[in-house]
C-alpha cells in the first residue's frame, strides 16, 4: 500500500505503455468478434494484413494517415496554446472550398507547378480564415472556443452544400460536384512519383501530400519548440498570465495559434481534392477532424507522436475496411466499434496499465 510510485523508465512510458493500451483495446475487440461468431485471431490477421500486407494496402494506410497527421497537428497546435479546437472538420472543409476555387480559377491558365502551390496556399488560407473567426470571438469577445468551433462545423457544412449545389456544380452534372480539375493540377500519386525512380508499387490514393504532411510535422516541431513564437504560444497554453508578463500579446497569439491550426486542417483538402478526387466534392472531410483530436492526444501533442498515432489510425481505417470486406459477419460498424475502443484505451484510459507496469518494473528495478 505504501510503496512509493516509481516513475517508469522513459521507454516504457513512451514506447511500451501505448502498445499495452492498444493491446488491451484489441483484447476487448477480440471478445466482441468472438461474440458475433467470427474467429478473433483470423480477424486480427486480416486486419494487420489488410493494413500492411501489400504495397496497395500500405498505400491506403498511409493515405488515411496523411489526413490524420494534418488534423492531429491542427488540434495539437491549438492545444499547446490552451485552445481546444473542435473545428478541424469545418476548417478542412472550408480549406477544400479554397482549394477548389483556386484550382477552378487557375488550372486552365497556369501550369501545374504554379497552380498546385497556389491551391495549397488557398487551402491553408481558407482553413485559417475559418479558424480565425472563432479565434477572434475568443480573443476579443471571450466566447467559448469549444462551442464556437463546433458551431462553425455546422455552418461550414451548410455553406459547402450551398456552394456545391447552387454555384460550383459542374454543368450537366447529376451530382453536387465541381468539374474535374485539369490533370496538371493534380498532386502526383505516390505510384507515379516512385515510378520516376523506377520503383513500382500498386496504385492507391496515396500521393505526395504525405510529404507535405511530414514536412508540416517537422515544421510544427520546429515552430513549437525551437522558435520564440512557439515558446510564447506554449507559455500562453500553460500559463496565460506568465505569457502576458513575458510580453506576449495574448489576443494576437490566439489568432496565430488558431490560424495555424486551421491552415493545418486545410491540409486534408490538399490530400483529398488535389491528391485523390481531382474535383471539389461534398463530405470529403468525413470525420477526420474529430479523429484528429484523438490522434493529437494519443500522440501527446508531439509531432512524432502524432505521426505514429496517425499511422495507427490509418492502419485501423484501412485494415478495418479489408476486414469488413473479407468477413461477412464483420460490418463496417464493427470497425467503428474497434476505433472507439482504441481511442478509449489509448486516449482516455492511458493510465490504466500504469500500476501494473509500475509493479512489474519496481520488482525488477
Amino acid at each position, binding site marked *: 500500500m505504501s510503496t512509493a510510485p516509481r516513475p517508469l523508465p522513459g521507454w516504457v512510458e513512451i514506447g511500451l505503455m501505448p502498445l499495452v493500451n492498444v493491446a488491451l483495446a484489441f483484447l476487448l475487440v477480440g471478445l466482441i468478434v468472438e461474440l458475433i461468431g467470427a474467429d478473433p485471431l483470423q480477424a486480427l490477421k486480416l486486419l494487420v494484413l489488410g493494413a500492411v500486407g501489400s504495397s496497395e494496402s500500405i498505400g491506403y494506410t498511409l493515405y488515411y494517415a496523411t489526413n490524420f497527421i494534418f488534423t492531429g497537428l491542427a488540434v495539437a497546435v491549438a492545444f499547446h496554446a490552451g485552445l481546444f479546437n473542435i473545428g478541424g472538420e469545418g476548417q478542412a472543409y472550408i480549406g477544400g472550398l479554397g482549394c477548389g476555387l483556386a484550382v477552378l480559377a487557375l488550372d486552365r491558365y497556369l501550369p501545374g507547378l504554379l497552380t498546385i502551390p497556389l491551391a495549397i496556399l488557398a487551402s491553408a488560407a481558407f482553413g485559417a480564415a475559418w479558424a480565425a473567426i472563432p479565434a477572434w470571438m475568443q480573443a476579443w469577445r471571450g466566447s467559448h472556443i469549444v462551442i464556437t468551433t463546433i458551431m462553425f462545423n455546422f455552418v461550414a457544412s451548410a455553406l459547402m452544400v450551398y456552394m456545391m449545389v447552387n454555384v460550383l456544380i459542374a454543368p450537366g452534372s447529376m451530382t453536387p460536384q465541381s468539374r474535374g480539375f485539369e490533370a496538371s493540377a493534380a498532386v502526383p500519386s505516390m505510384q507515379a512519383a516512385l515510378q520516376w525512380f523506377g520503383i513500382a508499387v500498386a496504385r492507391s490514393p496515396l500521393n505526395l501530400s504525405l510529404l507535405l504532411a511530414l514536412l508540416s510535422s517537422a515544421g510544427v516541431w520546429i515552430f513549437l519548440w525551437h522558435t520564440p513564437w512557439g515558446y510564447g504560444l506554449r507559455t500562453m497554453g500553460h500559463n496565460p498570465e506568465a505569457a502576458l508578463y513575458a510580453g506576449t500579446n495574448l489576443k494576437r497569439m490566439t489568432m496565430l495559434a488558431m490560424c495555424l491550426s486551421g491552415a493545418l486542417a486545410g491540409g486534408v483538402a490538399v490530400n483529398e481534392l488535389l491528391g485523390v478526387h481531382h474535383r471539389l*466534392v461534398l463530405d470529403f472531410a468525413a470525420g477526420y477532424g474529430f479523429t484528429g483530436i484523438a490522434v493529437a492526444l494519443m500522440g501527446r501533442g508531439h509531432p512524432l507522436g502524432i505521426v505514429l498515432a496517425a499511422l495507427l489510425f490509418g492502419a485501423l481505417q484501412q485494415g478495418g*475496411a479489408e476486414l469488413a470486406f473479407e468477413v461477412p459477419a464483420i460490418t*463496417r460498424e464493427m470497425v467503428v466499434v474497434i476505433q472507439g475502443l482504441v481511442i478509449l484505451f489509448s486516449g482516455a484510459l492511458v493510465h490504466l496499465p500504469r500500476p501494473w507496469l509500475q509493479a512489474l518494473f519496481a520488482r525488477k528495478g
Partner: protein
Amino acid sequence: QTAPIKPAVVFSTGGKFDKSFNEGVWQGAERFKKETNIAVAEFEPSNETQFEQALRRFAQRGQDPIIAVGFAQAVALEKVAKEFPNIHFTLIDSVVNLPNVQSVVFKEQEGSFLVGMLAAMASKTGKIGFVGGMDIPLVRRFQCGFEQGIKYANPNAELITNMTGTTPAAWNDPGRGAELAKGQFDRGVDVVYAAAGSTGLGILQAAKDRGKLGIGVDSNQNHLHPGNMLTSMLKRVDLAAYDSFKAAQANQWKGGVQVLGLKEAGVDWALDKDNEKLITPEMKAKVDAAKAAIISGQIVVHDYMSNNSCKS
C-alpha cells in the same frame, strides 16, 4: 448450360439498410441469391475513397458482374472499368459510357408525378408537403416531378417543401423528419411525400401519429402504416439489380444506358391491400390515364436535372 457467376455489390455510403435505393439493390440481390443459390459478395464503404478500392478488389478476384450503387461511384467505376475491360459493371443512378458498363438511371420525376396527382386528389386542404433529405439535385428531381403532378391534378393546390439538413446525417434523422412533417401539418398540410431515406420513417410516423397521409419512396412502404399510407413511389432498383444478375447468368448481359421510366416499369406507384381503401376508383382512373399519357409521350414530365431548374 451457363457458367456459375460470381456477382458482387458495392453499396453507397448510405449503407445497405438505408430504406432507400441501397436497400432496393440489396433486396434484388437477396432474391437472386434465394432463387439461384449463388452467393453475392457485398461491401458497404464507409467513405468515398473505398469505392475504387472495393470495386478493384472485387474485379481482381474475378467477381462478375459488379453492381455499383449510387451516382457517387461514377468516377471510381470509370477508372476501374477501364482497367478491367472483361468484367461487367452495372452502375445505378448515373451514367458511364464504356462498353463493359451498364448504366441504369430512373425517371424518378415520372413516378413522383403520379404520386403528386394522388396527393392532390386525396388532400382536403389543398396543401401538400414534401420533405427531402439533403438539398441535392437528385432530391430536387423528385420534388419537381411531384410538384408537376400536383399542379396537373389541382392547379390551386399548394406545395410546402422542407429539406432535412446539410450533412449526410440528414438521411438518418427521423426525429427531425418528424418535426418537419409536424411543422407542415401545423400549416394545414394533410399529405406528405417523404424522399429522405431513413429520415422518411420519422416523417411517415408523424403522419400516422397525426392522422395524416404519407407517401413512401423507393420501395413499397405502404405496409408501414396501413391506412395512413396514401401510396409509395416505387423505384425498382431491386429489379435493376436482379435483372442484371439474371442477364449475366444467362450470358445476355449488355452494356449501355438504360433509362427506366414508367414505360419500362422502372418507376411506378404502389397499390396494395394496405392502401386500397384510400384510393378511390376515380383517383385510380385519373392516375392510370396520366400514366398512359406519359408512356405515350402525350405528357412530358420535366426533369430537374436536365437544366438544374424546375422550369423547362
